[in-house]
């Protein structure tokens, strides 16, 4: 078996991974850094973020206000020390991006421009037109090319973390191009694999967001934190999950049910007016709108589309002129990717899964409880997002905690021994497993796509916008069944060269683990907080649940749940007030 | 090719030649190639034409009109041979034939106009 060796290894080449790699290369140019990514780095999902990145920029704003917005937005489940570090460094990191060439939008005098954003009380969201994530990712990627210490493994799929003697020692990965299975050993590993939206049937997330890193860490014995908190966005296109921005409603779009009725008036969101009114009706908070959709569906007043129930977003009354000047991107998306013209047609929408608040348990430096293992980005849960992430906090999070994880991993790796032989033995076992269970396996009856679709359905029906003990238990049972059926999958493709059926199968197995942990955590949290809404426990319960859930895998494969208190520094829990 | 490559020079000559060809050749072609021979327009007399051509400024003009478009042709034709016929292995020969041709043409033009 081939193997190669580095000092610090990044799993993932998205925003977080690249930022971390550069951090390592800058703090200690003598270290060799490897970036292993299953897609070319510039294809990573950070590329899709549109809106912007939050960081205090104006004299009328302050770090404390950004911190408070973040904490209250997260329904007080954020670790406040982490939030304080985050808001301070967010600004510095965004400036660093500017120095690296990020084409931030500007004021006429040449200063960085900022825009308002949902849940932020001051204008502090930096943006690069409506392609912020795209520009950030390409800036990071192109800048990373300058460092010769960074070695890239493009289109290598990591299947396992090597942990021996309580210390991480590298990974096993498949080179997609050739099918070669190889051990890449290292003194520290930073997992930056992004979110897991694909666990759900409808999501804004790309095809590559399968929670790989969460499952890798979980299987290596590292706890996952706050997995029950999954953010929905109320207006996504069905089937594709393409996001229709809040601006469409801010400009005066209506939400209609199957009778053409503005149904939000039935959900304590104010009375319909012809034009948009802040914080009423269509401009209510994201979670409330998503919840209203579920209720409307229960009443049988949604429209049955080819991909499940939808409601309509109506922009027709706004007229061609307003749509073309104020919402050109919305129209472009609808026309280009859905073949619908919002000037003349109703847009079918539904709530779609958007972001994962939970993830691999880390401290403020990105370190996990396993020695040498770090995590950063959406895959990690530091926890600054608490029970609900604010829009535009995720991009700066990648930078801040990517850089922090990079620096601490570099420091850790500087005085470690290289990986031992036990790691290589493990790698050999992993190679055997991959060959036997997938590549050389004959027979089997289950199709990857079938199990995946059943899983997605089960997770949505059980751990969707509203949850109850009953639905969650049903999901848990279904997932258990699917876990048992998984070994019986049949693969059409036994080739080594770019075998994407193999990677889909591996991703499916990762997703099954992640889905199970989401459902388990949701089942145990008997309260409603932020994105986690239990109809059987409607209120927030600070006495019992002002705490992070930690789920760990036991030897026998079952999971174990614990709670960890939330760090409160200066902002005692209060009510999260929106609307009136 | 290293820093002292002459490609930028030839490219510039190609471009300027392209401009000259675009602006000036159509009318010349129309007058001398079609309108005069076919009698659409009464051609100028020999004497007038000679007198005109002997004016220093017109000599210079004719020199530019002949030389630069040749460099335009040389560069374009060279790449057409490369790409259209995929004969890159004949590189040296093609360069000699094209740019060489343009240089010879330029010398001829200079000689003819000088001795006019």
């Amino acid at each position, binding site marked *: 078996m081939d193997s190669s060796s580095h000092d610090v290894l990044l799993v993932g080449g998205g925003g977080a991974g690249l930022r971390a790699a550069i951090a390592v290369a800058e703090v200690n140019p003598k270290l060799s850094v490897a970036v292993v990514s299953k897609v070319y780095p510039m294809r990573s999902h950070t590329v899709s973020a549109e809106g912007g990145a939050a960081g205090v920029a104006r004299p009328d704003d302050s770090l404390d206000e950004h911190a408070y917005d973040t904490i209250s937005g997260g329904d007080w489940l954020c670790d406040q020390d982490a939030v304080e570090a985050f808001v301070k460094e967010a600004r510095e990191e965004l400036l660093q991006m500017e120095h690296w060439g990020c084409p931030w939008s500007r004021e006429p005098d040449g200063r960085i421009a900022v825009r308002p954003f949902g849940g932020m009380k001051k204008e502090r969201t930096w943006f690069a037109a409506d392609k912020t994530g795209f520009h950030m990712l390409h800036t990071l990627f192109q800048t990373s090319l300058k460092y010769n210490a960074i070695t890239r493994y493009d289109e290598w799929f990591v299947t396992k973390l090597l942990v021996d003697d309580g210390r991480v020692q590298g990974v096993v990965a498949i*080179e997609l*191009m*050739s*099918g*070669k299975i190889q051990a890449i050993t290292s003194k520290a590993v930073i997992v930056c694999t992004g979110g897991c939206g694909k666990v759900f049937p409808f999501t804004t997330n790309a095809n590559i967001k399968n929670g790989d890193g969460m499952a890798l860490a979980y299987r290596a014995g590292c706890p996952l934190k706050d997995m029950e908190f999954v953010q929905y966005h109320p207006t996504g296109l069905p089937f594709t999950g393409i996001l229709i921005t809040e601006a469409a409603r801010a400009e005066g779009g209506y939400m209609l049910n199957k009778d053409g009725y503005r149904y939000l008036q039935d959900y304590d969101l104010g009375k319909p007016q012809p034009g948009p009114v802040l914080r009423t009706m269509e401009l209510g908070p994201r979670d409330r709108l998503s919840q209203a959709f579920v209720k409307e569906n229960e009443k049988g007043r949604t429209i049955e589309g080819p991909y499940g129930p939808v409601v309509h977003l109506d922009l027709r009354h706004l007229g061609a002129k307003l749509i073309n000047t104020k919402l050109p991107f919305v129209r472009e998306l609808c026309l280009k990717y859905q073949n619908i013209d919002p000037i003349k047609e109703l847009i079918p929408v539904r709530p779609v899964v958007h972001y994962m608040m939970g993830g691999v348990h880390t401290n403020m430096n990105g370190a996990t409880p396993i020695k040498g293992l770090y995590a950063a980005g959406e895959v990690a849960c530091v926890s600054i997002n608490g029970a609900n992430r604010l829009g535009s906090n995720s991009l700066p999070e990648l930078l801040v905690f990517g850089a922090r994880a990079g620096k601490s991993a570099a420091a850790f790796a500087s005085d470690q021994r290289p990986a031992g032989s036990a790691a290589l033995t493990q790698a050999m076992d992993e190679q055997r497993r991959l060959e036997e269970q997938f590549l050389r396996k004959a027979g089997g009856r289950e199709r990857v796509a079938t199990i995946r679709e059943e899983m997605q359905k089960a997770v949505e029906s059980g751990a969707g916008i509203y949850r109850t003990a009953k639905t969650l238990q049903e999901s848990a049972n279904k997932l258990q069944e699917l876990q048992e059926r998984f070994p019986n999958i049949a693969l059409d493709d036994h080739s*080594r*060269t770019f075998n994407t059926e193999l990677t889909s199968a591996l991703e499916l197995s990762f997703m099954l683990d992640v889905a199970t942990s989401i459902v388990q955590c949701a089942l145990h949290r008997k309260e409603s907080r932020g994105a986690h809404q239990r109809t059987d426990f409607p209120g927030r319960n600070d006495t019992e649940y002002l705490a992070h859930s930690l789920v760990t895998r036991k030897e026998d494969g079952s999971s174990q749940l614990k709670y960890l208190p939330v760090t409160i520094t200066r902002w005692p829990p209060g009510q999260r007030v929106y609307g009136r | 090719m290293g820093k002292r490559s002459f490609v930028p020079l030839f490219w510039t000559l190609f471009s300027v030649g*392209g*401009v000259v*060809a*675009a*602006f*000036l*050749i*159509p*009318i*010349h*072609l*129309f*007058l*001398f*190639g*079609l309108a*005069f*021979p*076919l009698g659409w*327009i*009464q*051609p*100028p007399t*020999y*004497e*007038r*034409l*000679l007198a*005109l*051509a002997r004016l220093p400024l017109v000599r210079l003009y*004719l020199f530019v*009109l*002949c030389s630069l*478009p*040749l460099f*335009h*042709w040389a560069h*374009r*034709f060279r*790449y*057409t041979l490369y*790409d*259209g*016929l*995929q004969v890159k292995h004949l590189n040296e020969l093609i360069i000699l034939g094209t740019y060489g*041709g343009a240089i010879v*043409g330029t010398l*001829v*033009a200079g000689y*003819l*106009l000088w*001795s*006019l």
Partner: protein
Amino acid sequence: MTEKPVYTEFHPRWYRTRVSTYWWLDRTPYVKFILRELSSIFVAFFVVITLLQIRALGQGPQAYPAFQQRLQAPIMVILNILSLLFVLFHTITWFNLTPKAIVLRVRGRRLPDLLIAAPNYVAWLVVSGVIAWIVTGG
């Protein structure tokens, strides 16, 4: 490939397509492209004829009419018509491409391509008029 691929037991053959010799017939834009490039031959042809004409001019009042006669031959007329068409094609493509190479900005906004190309055409008409006027004797 700039970097030589490393073929190992895991790197089987990549399939490489060869561009056909007649690639320029594959798609309409390519045909147009090759016609544009071929226009240069007619440019050169024009120069050769013009040089011959200058030579005839220098050879005296007897040689010149003989040269003029030769231009009336049908084959020459056909060649000249063809040349004119090709050169006009060159002129049009050349003018339309100028905006690509030169970016003009007025108060920070990039001028639309048409606005850059249009003056070319105007200037072209004027220059052609002046030349015709001088040659035909005003």
